[in-house]
């Protein structure tokens, strides 16, 4: 759905100018390339697997300053930094990495924030291995790329923990009002960018906490909520207003907001509609969408029941259907909540799994079982409305389908029964239809997504833009943020028209 990211001419010029700076030249000369290539990649320190399978504390512990500087030294500071092409928001990667090498951590964080409002989050949840690190020249030359994501996280964490988060100088207020619908990664990005241009930004959020999928979907052990809170507080300091418990399309329509003086709109309402497989028994008690299961645990803090009132189903034998990051988050959550067996059931093989390698690896370390090339075909009830087992079928792999992955083909006669008492269905989400239902004039695509011009993120309605999962279906945090950056730039132009 998305197109290959090209580096805009402006950014190319900027990268070239930064590359030519005297301090960069000196730093390059300080250590020859062959010596830089000899340094081994620093492994991210992790909480031991045995310890973490019981707690929700963050798994990755972060690099210390010495390790971060040493890792930054591995960067060859190439004249043609291909890593930047791999970044959906176009971060000036060489500059921030070299500032770390130089020991100027605060400056490195500021450099990141020029293009990325949420570096502490991206440093944790971006799939760097398929983006910036995938196209890192060091990977081509020496096999392992610079740990760009870990360095991003380091700089952002250092800034926060040293209390030096500084506000950029804001331009004179334009007195133009922009409405951002949905406080997820796309919306937060748009809000930050527009506030920095001097516009009055209000974020409308349906839930009682900001963050969208970052708060209801991604568990504490992968993204501590305190980090998210710090990023949201930063936006508040930039002057962004948050209107919580407000469902645009229900509490007020977009046209109502227009009447209140809002001129530009960004719709970032995400892919909040869980998909089910439509197989028998799917509505039995004990079968959940990943959205429900994770929302109960993350947003409502069900892991601390009954100190918090929202209960979460505790399975002894938990099966999670799917092979993406949401499936990994769900199965690792079930394990932490005390499941004796926590199993991934995925219809293709390991190589087709969309989850990040790191997440699969962490799951394996924590004792998660993988039933690959397997799919449930029906759930079996216990006679009282609850689920007690599921019938599965083994799959083979055929020719690649439209997604480029090999198509799973059911193997006749391979059916078997698996005893389970908790099922989490994590096979993807569709775009949330609440806004489009309230706005029949909005042009939609065939998957229930909002149709946009991919160059500008503009919808068919003037002044209304959209981005993130509402246009893409289930994608990633960083792609949503990339959409947000483009939309914010266009909205700025629109507001100044």
């Amino acid at each position, binding site marked *: 759905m998305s197109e290959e990211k090209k580096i805009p001419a402006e950014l190319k010029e900027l990268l070239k100018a930064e590359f030519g700076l005297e301090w960069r030249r000196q730093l390059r000369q300080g250590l020859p390339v062959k010596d830089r290539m000899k340094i081994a990649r620093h492994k991210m320190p992790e909480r031991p697997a045995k310890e973490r399978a019981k707690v929700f504390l963050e798994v990755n512990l972060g690099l210390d300053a010495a390790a971060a500087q040493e890792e930054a030294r591995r960067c060859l500071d190439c004249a043609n930094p291909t890593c930047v092409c791999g970044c959906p928001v176009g971060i000036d990667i060489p500059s921030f990495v070299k500032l770390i090498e130089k020991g100027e951590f605060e400056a490195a964080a500021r450099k990141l924030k020029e293009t990325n409002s949420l570096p502490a989050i991206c440093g944790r949840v971006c799939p760097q291995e398929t983006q910036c690190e995938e196209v890192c020249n060091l990977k081509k030359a020496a096999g392992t790329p610079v740990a760009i994501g870990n360095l991003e996280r380091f700089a952002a964490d250092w800034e926060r923990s040293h209390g030096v988060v500084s506000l950029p100088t804001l331009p004179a207020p334009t007195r133009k009002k922009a409405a951002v619908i949905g406080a997820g990664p796309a919306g937060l990005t748009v809000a930050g960018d527009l506030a920095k241009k001097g516009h009055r930004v209000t974020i409308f959020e349906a839930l009682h906490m900001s963050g969208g999928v970052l708060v*209801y979907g991604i568990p504490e052990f992968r993204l501590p909520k305190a980090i998210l809170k710090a990023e949201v507080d930063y936006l508040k300091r930039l002057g962004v207003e948050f209107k919580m*418990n*407000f469902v645009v399309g229900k*509490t007020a329509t977009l046209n109502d907001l227009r009447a209140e003086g809002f001129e530009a709109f960004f719709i970032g309402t995400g892919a909040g509609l869980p998909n089910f497989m439509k197989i028998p028994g799917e509505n039995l008690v004990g079968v959940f969408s990943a959205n429900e299961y994770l929302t109960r645990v993350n947003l409502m803090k069900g892991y601390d029941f009954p100190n918090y009132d929202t*209960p979460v189903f505790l399975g002894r034998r938990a099966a999670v259907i799917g092979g993406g990051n949401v499936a990994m988050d769900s199965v690792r959550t079930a394990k932490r909540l005390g499941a004796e067996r926590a199993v991934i059931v995925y219809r293709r093989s390991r190589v087709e799994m969309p989850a990040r390698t790191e997440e699969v690896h962490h799951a394996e370390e924590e004792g998660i079982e993988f039933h690959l090339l397997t799919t449930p075909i029906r759930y079996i009830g216990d006679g009282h409305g609850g689920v007690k087992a599921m019938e599965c079928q083994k799959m083979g792999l055929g020719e690649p389908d439209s997604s480029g992955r090999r198509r799973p083909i059911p193997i006749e006669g391979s059916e078997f029964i698996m005893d389970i008492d908790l099922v989490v269905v994590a096979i993807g989400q569709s775009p*949330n*239809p*609440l806004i489009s239902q309230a706005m029949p004039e909005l042009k939609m695509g065939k998957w229930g997504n909002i149709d946009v011009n991919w160059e500008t993120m503009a919808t068919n309605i003037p002044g209304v833009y959209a981005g993130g999962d509402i246009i893409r279906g289930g994608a990633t945090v960083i792609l949503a943020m990339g959409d947000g950056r483009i939309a914010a730039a266009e909205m700025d132009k629109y507001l100044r028209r």
Partner: protein
Amino acid sequence: MAKILQRVRLVPNVHLLEVQAPEIARKCAPGQFVMVMPDERGERIPLTIADWDIEKGSITCVFLAVGTSTRKLALLQAGDEVPVFVGPLGKPSEMRNFGTVVCAGGCFGIAAIHPIARALKALGNRIITIVDVKARYLLYWEDKLRRVSDRFIVSTRDGAAGGTNEPHYIAAELNALIAAEPRIDRVVAIGCTYLMSASAEATRPHGIKTMVSLNPIMVDGTGMCGACRCTEGGKTRFACVDGPDFDGHAIDWAEVYARRKSYFDDEIRSLCAWEEKTFG
């Protein structure tokens, strides 16, 4: 944060909550609901909107104090605040001149049926209201309902209101009405699952369209989680966005009953923990 304007006990265990919510008051229609979280550690629960006042900017809900969340709500006083009060959610009830409509309400549904009866009456329908209560002293809003009803029937288990000492049940009341009335075009039932399923079963043999307002467990209330899914006519629906009103004859009631009890043990555990903490 939303401010509580008043919280009154109407009858034992049934409370009225009026909350400052001018935006919701401007938008809401009969049949819609709000999601409420009583405090920062609370659960998000749906409450049907029982009334609203655009000038005052308020929304009124009536609820039965039964679990942790509703017990917490029942302790609120005017001036207190709740962290979540969001809406109006769900689709409004279908409104037009059907002819003769029976509005059946029980428990919190006695209040929830009121705005529906009022709007249907304004559209020219003949309204027969049945309120179903265990005993006469549990009846409330009688005057309000009588004002919008052409006939008003109280069905009580103690029989006190029926003029006899026989216990009355909703299904029998409906059967009697169907036999006596020349024509009933529609039944709308709101209350506990039992009241709604019993109403649907009573009208099924007569083919009288019976709409029910499902009140399943919800988390976000905006279509995001699917906790509220039910089966209507063999298809899975989300009560929060596809409902809450459904055709009572097409609903899989056994599933509704089972799913409502999903967290039965946890709900008791939660209530015990909260009582221990609150009252010692």
